[in-house]
Protein backbone atom coordinates (compact mmCIF):
# COMPACT_ATOMS: atom_id res chain seq x y z
CA UNK A 1 0.00 0.00 0.00
CA UNK A 2 2.76 2.46 0.97
CA UNK A 3 4.85 1.38 -2.00
CA UNK A 4 1.89 2.03 -4.18
CA UNK A 5 1.62 5.49 -2.71
CA UNK A 6 5.27 6.34 -3.43
CA UNK A 7 5.01 4.93 -6.93
CA UNK A 8 1.82 6.80 -7.68
CA UNK A 9 3.13 10.14 -6.47
CA UNK A 10 6.53 9.67 -8.06
CA UNK A 11 4.95 8.88 -11.39
CA UNK A 12 2.56 11.80 -11.04
CA UNK A 13 5.51 14.08 -10.27
CA UNK A 14 7.38 13.00 -13.40
CA UNK A 15 4.39 13.10 -15.72
CA UNK A 16 3.26 16.50 -14.49
CA UNK A 17 6.75 17.99 -14.94
CA UNK A 18 7.03 16.55 -18.45
CA UNK A 19 3.51 17.63 -19.40
CA UNK A 20 4.22 21.11 -18.08
CA UNK A 21 7.54 21.73 -19.81
CA UNK A 22 6.89 19.85 -23.05
CA UNK A 23 3.27 20.78 -23.68
CA UNK A 24 1.83 23.54 -21.50
CA UNK A 25 4.89 25.82 -21.49
CA UNK A 26 4.64 25.89 -25.28
CA UNK A 27 0.97 26.70 -25.56
CA UNK A 28 1.41 30.49 -25.55
CA UNK A 29 -2.33 30.83 -26.04
CA UNK A 30 -3.10 34.43 -27.11
CA UNK A 31 0.62 35.05 -26.94
CA UNK A 32 1.13 34.75 -23.20
CA UNK A 33 -1.16 32.19 -21.53
CA UNK A 34 0.84 29.16 -20.41
CA UNK A 35 -1.32 27.26 -17.91
CA UNK A 36 0.65 25.83 -14.99
CA UNK A 37 -1.13 22.54 -14.59
CA UNK A 38 1.66 20.95 -12.57
CA UNK A 39 0.02 22.61 -9.58
CA UNK A 40 -2.45 19.66 -9.64
CA UNK A 41 0.28 17.77 -7.78
CA UNK A 42 -0.61 19.85 -4.74
CA UNK A 43 -4.28 19.11 -5.31
CA UNK A 44 -3.84 15.36 -5.55
CA UNK A 45 -1.14 14.82 -2.93
CA UNK A 46 -2.50 12.70 -0.03
CA UNK A 47 -3.59 14.68 3.00
CA UNK A 48 -2.47 12.52 5.88
CA UNK A 49 1.20 12.50 4.95
CA UNK A 50 3.92 14.39 6.79
CA UNK A 51 3.79 18.07 6.06
CA UNK A 52 7.52 18.73 6.02
CA UNK A 53 8.08 16.06 3.37
CA UNK A 54 5.25 17.52 1.32
CA UNK A 55 6.79 21.01 1.42
CA UNK A 56 10.22 19.71 0.40
CA UNK A 57 8.75 17.69 -2.47
CA UNK A 58 6.83 20.70 -3.70
CA UNK A 59 9.94 22.86 -3.55
CA UNK A 60 11.78 20.30 -5.67
CA UNK A 61 8.82 20.09 -8.05
CA UNK A 62 8.90 23.85 -8.53
CA UNK A 63 12.66 23.83 -8.96
CA UNK A 64 12.39 21.13 -11.63
CA UNK A 65 9.96 23.31 -13.59
CA UNK A 66 12.27 26.30 -13.05
CA UNK A 67 15.29 24.53 -14.48
CA UNK A 68 13.35 23.72 -17.63
CA UNK A 69 11.81 27.13 -18.14
CA UNK A 70 14.74 29.40 -17.13
CA UNK A 71 12.73 31.10 -14.40
CA UNK A 72 15.38 31.09 -11.63
CA UNK A 73 13.48 29.79 -8.55
CA UNK A 74 10.08 31.47 -8.99
CA UNK A 75 8.13 28.25 -9.37
CA UNK A 76 9.94 26.72 -6.40
CA UNK A 77 9.04 29.58 -4.07
CA UNK A 78 5.43 29.73 -5.26
CA UNK A 79 5.02 25.98 -5.02
CA UNK A 80 6.57 25.60 -1.55
CA UNK A 81 4.44 28.48 -0.27
CA UNK A 82 1.25 26.86 -1.52
CA UNK A 83 2.33 23.55 0.00
CA UNK A 84 2.83 25.30 3.31
CA UNK A 85 -0.58 26.98 3.20
CA UNK A 86 -2.49 24.02 1.78
CA UNK A 87 -3.87 22.86 5.18
CA UNK A 88 -5.11 26.40 5.85
CA UNK A 89 -6.87 26.53 2.50
CA UNK A 90 -8.36 23.08 3.01
CA UNK A 91 -9.66 23.97 6.44
CA UNK A 92 -11.19 27.09 4.95
CA UNK A 93 -12.83 25.29 2.03
CA UNK A 94 -13.87 21.98 3.58
CA UNK A 95 -14.55 23.19 7.11
CA UNK A 96 -14.39 20.83 10.08
CA UNK A 97 -14.81 17.72 7.91
CA UNK A 98 -11.21 18.06 6.85
CA UNK A 99 -10.01 17.16 10.36
CA UNK A 100 -11.67 13.73 10.34
CA UNK A 101 -9.65 10.63 9.67
CA UNK A 102 -12.13 9.44 7.07
CA UNK A 103 -11.92 12.64 5.02
CA UNK A 104 -11.49 12.05 1.32
CA UNK A 105 -11.26 14.58 -1.47
CA UNK A 106 -13.53 12.47 -3.67
CA UNK A 107 -16.31 12.64 -1.06
CA UNK A 108 -16.56 16.40 -1.17
CA UNK A 109 -18.87 18.36 -3.42
CA UNK A 110 -17.84 19.55 -6.83
CA UNK A 111 -18.07 23.19 -5.78
CA UNK A 112 -15.71 22.56 -2.87
CA UNK A 113 -13.17 20.83 -5.08
CA UNK A 114 -13.23 23.67 -7.58
CA UNK A 115 -12.96 26.25 -4.80
CA UNK A 116 -9.95 24.42 -3.37
CA UNK A 117 -8.27 24.33 -6.76
CA UNK A 118 -9.09 27.99 -7.41
CA UNK A 119 -7.46 29.09 -4.17
CA UNK A 120 -4.37 27.01 -4.91
CA UNK A 121 -4.08 28.52 -8.39
CA UNK A 122 -4.77 32.07 -7.24
CA UNK A 123 -2.12 31.95 -4.53
CA UNK A 124 0.43 30.22 -6.70
CA UNK A 125 0.03 32.50 -9.70
CA UNK A 126 0.07 35.64 -7.58
CA UNK A 127 3.38 34.69 -5.99
CA UNK A 128 4.85 33.48 -9.26
CA UNK A 129 4.03 36.58 -11.29
CA UNK A 130 4.96 38.91 -8.43
CA UNK A 131 8.42 37.36 -8.46
CA UNK A 132 8.63 37.25 -12.23
CA UNK A 133 7.62 40.85 -12.80
CA UNK A 134 9.32 41.98 -9.58
CA UNK A 135 7.76 45.42 -9.45
CA UNK A 136 4.38 46.83 -8.55
CA UNK A 137 4.64 49.53 -11.22
CA UNK A 138 3.30 47.05 -13.75
CA UNK A 139 0.21 46.34 -11.67
CA UNK A 140 -2.10 46.05 -14.66
CA UNK A 141 0.21 43.63 -16.44
CA UNK A 142 0.49 41.64 -13.22
CA UNK A 143 -3.30 41.41 -12.82
CA UNK A 144 -3.75 40.52 -16.48
CA UNK A 145 -1.25 37.70 -16.24
CA UNK A 146 -2.64 36.35 -12.96
CA UNK A 147 -6.27 36.41 -14.10
CA UNK A 148 -5.87 35.00 -17.60
CA UNK A 149 -3.19 32.43 -16.87
CA UNK A 150 -5.15 31.50 -13.74
CA UNK A 151 -8.31 30.95 -15.75
CA UNK A 152 -6.39 28.82 -18.23
CA UNK A 153 -4.91 26.73 -15.43
CA UNK A 154 -8.31 26.37 -13.77
CA UNK A 155 -10.09 25.17 -16.92
CA UNK A 156 -7.35 22.69 -17.80
CA UNK A 157 -7.07 21.64 -14.16
CA UNK A 158 -10.77 20.84 -13.87
CA UNK A 159 -10.61 18.93 -17.14
CA UNK A 160 -7.66 16.88 -15.94
CA UNK A 161 -9.23 16.21 -12.54
CA UNK A 162 -12.39 14.97 -14.21
CA UNK A 163 -10.42 12.91 -16.67
CA UNK A 164 -8.20 11.16 -14.16
CA UNK A 165 -10.63 10.64 -11.31
CA UNK A 166 -13.17 8.77 -13.43
CA UNK A 167 -11.11 5.60 -13.58
CA UNK A 168 -10.79 5.36 -9.80
CA UNK A 169 -14.52 4.89 -9.28
Amino acid at each position, binding site marked *: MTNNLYLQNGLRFLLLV*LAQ*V*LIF*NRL*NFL*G*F*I*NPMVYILFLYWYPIKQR*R*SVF*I*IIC*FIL*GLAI*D*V*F*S*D*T*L*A*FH*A*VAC*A*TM*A*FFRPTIMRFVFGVNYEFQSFKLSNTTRAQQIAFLTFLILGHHTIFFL*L*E*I*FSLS*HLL*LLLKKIVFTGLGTLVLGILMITLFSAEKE
Partner: protein
Amino acid sequence: MSGRDGSIQQEKRMQQIINFILRNKTTLLYLFLLTLGMAMSIKSHSYHQSRFLNSANWLSGSIYKTQSDITGYFGLREENDRLVEENTRLKKLLYNSADLTVAGAATDSFPYQVIPARIIKNSYALRNNYITLNKGTTNGVKQDMGVVTSMGVLGIVEYTTDRFSAVQSLLNTRSNINAKIKNTNNFGSLTWNTDRYDVVQLEDIPRIVPLNIGDTIVTGAMSSIFPENIPIGTIQRIDLENSDSFYEIDVALFNDMTNLKNVYIISNRNSEEIRLLEEKINDDQ
Protein backbone atom coordinates in the same frame (compact mmCIF):
# COMPACT_ATOMS: atom_id res chain seq x y z
CA MET B 1 26.07 24.53 44.23
CA SER B 2 25.28 27.61 42.19
CA GLY B 3 27.30 26.18 39.29
CA ARG B 4 25.06 23.15 39.13
CA ASP B 5 21.97 25.40 39.26
CA GLY B 6 23.35 27.36 36.35
CA SER B 7 23.94 24.27 34.27
CA ILE B 8 20.45 22.98 35.04
CA GLN B 9 19.01 26.30 34.01
CA GLN B 10 21.07 26.21 30.86
CA GLU B 11 19.82 22.72 30.12
CA LYS B 12 16.28 23.91 30.59
CA ARG B 13 16.85 26.74 28.21
CA MET B 14 18.32 24.36 25.64
CA GLN B 15 15.29 22.15 26.12
CA GLN B 16 13.03 25.10 25.45
CA ILE B 17 14.89 26.01 22.30
CA ILE B 18 14.75 22.43 21.05
CA ASN B 19 11.06 22.24 21.87
CA PHE B 20 10.47 25.45 20.01
CA ILE B 21 12.28 24.12 16.95
CA LEU B 22 10.39 20.81 17.10
CA ARG B 23 7.06 22.52 17.53
CA ASN B 24 7.60 24.89 14.62
CA LYS B 25 9.69 22.67 12.44
CA THR B 26 7.33 22.88 9.46
CA THR B 27 7.25 26.65 9.58
CA LEU B 28 11.00 26.85 10.00
CA LEU B 29 11.49 24.43 7.12
CA TYR B 30 9.21 26.51 4.96
CA LEU B 31 11.00 29.73 5.90
CA PHE B 32 14.32 28.07 5.11
CA LEU B 33 13.13 26.96 1.66
CA LEU B 34 11.61 30.38 1.05
CA THR B 35 14.91 32.08 1.84
CA LEU B 36 16.76 29.59 -0.33
CA GLY B 37 14.42 30.19 -3.24
CA MET B 38 14.52 33.95 -2.86
CA ALA B 39 18.30 33.91 -2.65
CA MET B 40 18.48 31.90 -5.85
CA SER B 41 16.09 34.30 -7.56
CA ILE B 42 17.52 37.58 -6.38
CA LYS B 43 21.20 36.73 -6.61
CA SER B 44 20.61 35.69 -10.18
CA HIS B 45 18.99 38.98 -11.05
CA SER B 46 22.56 40.16 -11.55
CA TYR B 47 24.26 39.78 -14.89
CA HIS B 48 24.94 36.07 -15.07
CA GLN B 49 22.54 33.38 -13.94
CA SER B 50 23.53 30.81 -11.39
CA ARG B 51 25.15 27.85 -13.00
CA PHE B 52 22.63 25.04 -12.76
CA LEU B 53 19.38 26.89 -12.96
CA ASN B 54 19.23 27.17 -16.70
CA SER B 55 17.80 24.93 -19.35
CA ALA B 56 21.18 24.28 -20.98
CA ASN B 57 22.06 21.55 -18.45
CA TRP B 58 22.32 17.98 -19.69
CA LEU B 59 19.00 16.78 -18.31
CA SER B 60 16.64 19.43 -19.65
CA GLY B 61 18.85 19.86 -22.70
CA SER B 62 18.54 16.18 -23.58
CA ILE B 63 14.79 16.13 -22.99
CA TYR B 64 14.25 19.24 -25.10
CA LYS B 65 16.52 17.83 -27.79
CA THR B 66 14.52 14.61 -27.93
CA GLN B 67 11.33 16.58 -28.27
CA SER B 68 12.86 18.79 -30.94
CA ASP B 69 14.10 15.70 -32.81
CA ILE B 70 10.57 14.34 -32.88
CA THR B 71 8.62 17.50 -33.60
CA GLY B 72 11.33 18.79 -35.92
CA TYR B 73 9.72 16.96 -38.82
CA PHE B 74 6.67 19.16 -38.71
CA GLY B 75 7.27 22.36 -40.60
CA LEU B 76 10.30 21.00 -42.43
CA ARG B 77 9.00 22.25 -45.75
CA GLU B 78 8.45 25.75 -44.43
CA GLU B 79 11.94 25.75 -42.95
CA ASN B 80 13.37 24.48 -46.24
CA ASP B 81 11.69 27.25 -48.17
CA ARG B 82 13.18 29.77 -45.81
CA LEU B 83 16.67 28.36 -46.22
CA VAL B 84 16.38 28.21 -50.02
CA GLU B 85 15.24 31.81 -50.01
CA GLU B 86 18.23 32.78 -47.93
CA ASN B 87 20.55 30.80 -50.19
CA THR B 88 19.11 32.56 -53.23
CA ARG B 89 19.75 35.92 -51.67
CA LEU B 90 23.31 34.99 -50.75
CA LYS B 91 23.98 33.61 -54.23
CA LYS B 92 22.71 36.84 -55.74
CA LEU B 93 25.08 38.78 -53.51
CA LEU B 94 27.91 36.50 -54.46
CA TYR B 95 27.36 36.60 -58.22
CA ASN B 96 27.07 40.37 -58.22
CA SER B 97 30.19 40.94 -56.19
CA ALA B 98 33.21 42.14 -58.11
CA ASP B 99 35.46 39.31 -57.09
CA LEU B 100 33.94 35.93 -57.77
CA THR B 101 36.88 34.06 -56.28
CA VAL B 102 35.49 34.67 -52.79
CA ALA B 103 33.32 31.63 -53.42
CA GLY B 104 36.34 29.39 -53.25
CA ALA B 105 38.30 31.36 -50.69
CA ALA B 106 39.38 29.77 -47.44
CA THR B 107 36.84 31.16 -45.01
CA ASP B 108 38.73 30.00 -41.93
CA SER B 109 40.85 33.12 -41.87
CA PHE B 110 37.88 35.51 -41.68
CA PRO B 111 37.42 37.32 -38.39
CA TYR B 112 33.79 36.23 -38.06
CA GLN B 113 33.03 32.52 -37.95
CA VAL B 114 29.56 31.02 -38.12
CA ILE B 115 28.28 27.92 -36.29
CA PRO B 116 24.89 26.58 -37.38
CA ALA B 117 22.54 25.49 -34.59
CA ARG B 118 18.94 24.50 -33.97
CA ILE B 119 16.58 25.88 -31.36
CA ILE B 120 15.36 23.16 -29.00
CA LYS B 121 13.47 25.40 -26.60
CA ASN B 122 12.06 28.87 -27.14
CA SER B 123 10.01 31.12 -24.88
CA TYR B 124 8.57 34.60 -25.36
CA ALA B 125 5.77 34.93 -22.79
CA LEU B 126 8.00 35.72 -19.81
CA ARG B 127 9.85 38.92 -18.99
CA ASN B 128 13.26 37.32 -19.20
CA ASN B 129 13.18 34.87 -22.05
CA TYR B 130 15.89 32.38 -22.86
CA ILE B 131 16.35 30.19 -25.90
CA THR B 132 18.14 26.85 -25.73
CA LEU B 133 20.30 25.67 -28.66
CA ASN B 134 21.60 22.21 -29.49
CA LYS B 135 25.26 23.32 -29.74
CA GLY B 136 27.65 23.75 -26.83
CA THR B 137 31.31 24.14 -25.95
CA THR B 138 32.26 20.99 -27.87
CA ASN B 139 31.09 22.77 -31.01
CA GLY B 140 33.07 25.89 -30.15
CA VAL B 141 30.24 27.93 -28.68
CA LYS B 142 31.31 30.34 -25.96
CA GLN B 143 29.65 32.90 -23.75
CA ASP B 144 28.88 36.29 -25.37
CA MET B 145 28.68 35.06 -28.93
CA GLY B 146 25.93 36.58 -31.07
CA VAL B 147 23.01 34.55 -32.39
CA VAL B 148 21.17 35.48 -35.61
CA THR B 149 18.68 33.91 -38.01
CA SER B 150 18.36 34.46 -41.73
CA MET B 151 15.98 37.33 -40.89
CA GLY B 152 17.97 39.16 -38.23
CA VAL B 153 19.36 39.34 -34.72
CA LEU B 154 18.07 36.93 -32.07
CA GLY B 155 20.20 37.26 -28.94
CA ILE B 156 23.49 36.60 -27.18
CA VAL B 157 24.82 33.33 -25.76
CA GLU B 158 24.73 33.56 -21.98
CA TYR B 159 25.49 30.04 -20.85
CA THR B 160 27.08 26.99 -22.38
CA THR B 161 27.46 23.38 -21.35
CA ASP B 162 29.19 20.63 -23.32
CA ARG B 163 26.33 20.05 -25.70
CA PHE B 164 23.89 22.91 -25.23
CA SER B 165 23.79 26.66 -24.83
CA ALA B 166 21.28 29.12 -23.37
CA VAL B 167 20.75 32.32 -25.31
CA GLN B 168 19.50 35.54 -23.80
CA SER B 169 16.78 36.48 -26.26
CA LEU B 170 16.14 40.03 -27.50
CA LEU B 171 12.92 39.57 -25.53
CA ASN B 172 14.69 39.82 -22.19
CA THR B 173 14.66 42.83 -19.89
CA ARG B 174 18.39 42.36 -19.38
CA SER B 175 19.14 42.37 -23.08
CA ASN B 176 21.01 45.43 -24.31
CA ILE B 177 22.31 45.43 -27.87
CA ASN B 178 24.05 48.17 -29.77
CA ALA B 179 21.96 49.21 -32.77
CA LYS B 180 21.85 52.02 -35.31
CA ILE B 181 19.76 53.47 -38.10
CA LYS B 182 20.76 51.89 -41.39
CA ASN B 183 23.17 53.94 -43.53
CA THR B 184 23.88 56.38 -40.73
CA ASN B 185 26.14 56.28 -37.72
CA ASN B 186 23.53 57.25 -35.15
CA PHE B 187 23.52 54.45 -32.67
CA GLY B 188 21.51 53.64 -29.58
CA SER B 189 20.78 50.63 -27.44
CA LEU B 190 18.09 48.08 -28.05
CA THR B 191 16.00 47.07 -25.04
CA TRP B 192 12.64 45.42 -24.43
CA ASN B 193 9.73 46.80 -22.39
CA THR B 194 8.00 43.37 -22.22
CA ASP B 195 4.75 44.61 -23.78
CA ARG B 196 4.75 42.76 -27.09
CA TYR B 197 6.82 39.89 -28.35
CA ASP B 198 7.24 41.39 -31.82
CA VAL B 199 8.27 44.91 -30.78
CA VAL B 200 11.47 46.07 -29.05
CA GLN B 201 12.62 49.58 -28.09
CA LEU B 202 15.51 51.63 -29.36
CA GLU B 203 16.83 54.19 -26.89
CA ASP B 204 19.38 57.00 -26.79
CA ILE B 205 18.92 58.30 -30.34
CA PRO B 206 19.29 62.11 -30.04
CA ARG B 207 16.45 64.29 -31.31
CA ILE B 208 18.51 66.04 -33.96
CA VAL B 209 18.60 62.82 -36.00
CA PRO B 210 15.97 62.83 -38.77
CA LEU B 211 13.85 59.68 -38.51
CA ASN B 212 10.98 58.21 -40.50
CA ILE B 213 8.58 55.42 -39.73
CA GLY B 214 9.71 52.39 -41.68
CA ASP B 215 13.44 53.11 -41.40
CA THR B 216 15.51 49.98 -40.96
CA ILE B 217 17.41 49.33 -37.75
CA VAL B 218 20.62 47.28 -37.93
CA THR B 219 23.34 46.27 -35.47
CA GLY B 220 25.91 48.94 -34.75
CA ALA B 221 29.67 48.89 -34.92
CA MET B 222 30.12 49.47 -31.21
CA SER B 223 29.82 45.83 -30.28
CA SER B 224 32.39 43.09 -30.65
CA ILE B 225 29.58 40.51 -30.52
CA PHE B 226 27.75 41.20 -33.78
CA PRO B 227 29.21 42.28 -37.11
CA GLU B 228 27.91 45.66 -38.26
CA ASN B 229 24.73 45.96 -40.35
CA ILE B 230 22.85 42.80 -39.39
CA PRO B 231 19.17 43.64 -39.79
CA ILE B 232 16.99 43.88 -36.66
CA GLY B 233 13.68 45.48 -37.65
CA THR B 234 11.91 48.59 -38.88
CA ILE B 235 10.75 51.65 -36.98
CA GLN B 236 7.09 51.27 -36.11
CA ARG B 237 6.44 54.25 -33.87
CA ILE B 238 8.40 57.36 -32.95
CA ASP B 239 7.72 59.26 -29.76
CA LEU B 240 9.31 62.64 -29.11
CA GLU B 241 8.01 65.03 -26.48
CA ASN B 242 9.09 68.65 -26.71
CA SER B 243 11.19 68.38 -23.58
CA ASP B 244 12.90 65.14 -24.53
CA SER B 245 16.39 65.10 -25.92
CA PHE B 246 16.13 61.48 -27.00
CA TYR B 247 13.62 59.61 -29.10
CA GLU B 248 11.50 56.76 -27.85
CA ILE B 249 11.36 54.36 -30.75
CA ASP B 250 9.41 51.14 -31.19
CA VAL B 251 11.05 48.67 -33.54
CA ALA B 252 9.05 45.90 -35.22
CA LEU B 253 11.31 42.86 -35.43
CA PHE B 254 12.03 41.11 -38.72
CA ASN B 255 12.17 37.81 -36.85
CA ASP B 256 8.93 36.11 -35.91
CA MET B 257 10.04 35.24 -32.37
CA THR B 258 7.29 32.67 -32.02
CA ASN B 259 8.36 30.58 -34.98
CA LEU B 260 12.09 29.94 -35.13
CA LYS B 261 14.12 26.86 -35.85
CA ASN B 262 17.52 27.26 -37.49
CA VAL B 263 19.95 29.87 -36.22
CA TYR B 264 23.58 30.86 -36.69
CA ILE B 265 25.99 31.53 -33.86
CA ILE B 266 28.56 34.19 -34.73
CA SER B 267 31.97 34.09 -33.15
CA ASN B 268 34.40 36.95 -33.52
CA ARG B 269 38.07 36.02 -33.50
CA ASN B 270 38.98 39.50 -32.43
CA SER B 271 36.51 39.75 -29.57
CA GLU B 272 38.99 38.53 -26.99
CA GLU B 273 41.56 41.09 -28.13
CA ILE B 274 38.98 43.88 -28.12
CA ARG B 275 37.83 42.87 -24.66
CA LEU B 276 41.39 42.92 -23.30
CA LEU B 277 41.98 46.31 -24.87
CA GLU B 278 38.81 47.72 -23.35
CA GLU B 279 39.70 46.27 -19.97
CA LYS B 280 43.05 47.97 -20.17
CA ILE B 281 41.36 51.31 -20.77
CA ASN B 282 39.08 50.73 -17.81
CA ASP B 283 42.04 49.79 -15.63
CA ASP B 284 43.92 52.93 -16.60
CA GLN B 285 41.06 55.19 -15.63
